């Protein structure tokens, strides 16, 4: 059951927190998240490659999947580099600050937003440090 009063307090707290969040800090968190995904893609690619490339004959669909993973890994690395490169020039437009409530509503996993906004005690029990758990 939703508690409107509690929800209102959360939103107020989120607004106060996000007002102090710089665009560069926001970009740095996104870079970190992309880096984690990049690491995951490396593991997946290595595991799949070890099995697929030993198979005789080569399984066609697995080979295609391996190439898609290769593309995914490279793309994630490029996104991280691009974001890192442009982040010194990033800034919020006047009077804009990211809204935690809006972001939490938009994402599939709240953990994706936890790194952007500091953890609040009421959510600490939900914290998941191991990315494998999300997968």
């Amino acid at each position: 059951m939703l508690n409107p009063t509690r929800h209102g307090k959360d939103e107020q707290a989120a607004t106060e927190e996000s007002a102090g969040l710089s665009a560069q800090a926001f970009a740095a968190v996104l870079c970190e998240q992309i880096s984690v995904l990049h690491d995951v893609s490396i593991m997946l690619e290595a595991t799949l490659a070890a099995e697929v490339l030993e198979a005789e004959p080569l399984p066609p669909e697995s080979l295609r999947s391996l190439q898609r993973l290769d593309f995914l890994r490279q793309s994630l690395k490029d996104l991280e580099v691009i974001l890192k490169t442009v982040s010194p020039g990033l800034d919020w437009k006047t009077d804009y600050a990211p809204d935690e409530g809006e972001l939490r509503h938009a994402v599939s996993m709240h953990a994706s937003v936890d790194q952007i906004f500091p953890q609040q005690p009421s959510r600490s029990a939900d914290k998941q440090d191991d990315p494998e758990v999300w997968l």
Partner: protein
Amino acid sequence: MALRDQLRIMVVDDMSTSRGVITQALDGFGIRNVASTSDGPSALKALASAPVHLVISDFNMPAMDGLQLLQHLRAGPKTKGVGFILITGKADKESIEQGRKLGMNNFLKKPFDPNDLRNCIEAVVGRL
């Protein structure tokens, strides 16, 4: 002697997984004379001393992309006639047209399977 026994191929790709996919597929076709390098400059150096019949190169590579490698190959007296297949994830009209102008013999879009690769090679060198 079958063509596959005589054919010498060089695979150029900066990604070890992609090189593995291609070289394993070539091995499956019975092509044993396969060299591989991770970048264009290394490929050019290797080809100067050990020429091949066909180069299979990725498009997106740091330092020198696949089309730049092709340009260098076509400019070299010893390598101007080598067959060239470009492997690309995009296969956009502009890149392919540029490749054709530079003398690319064929191209293959990722992701591909061994059968796609075989057909692509046979379109350049003949039945394996």
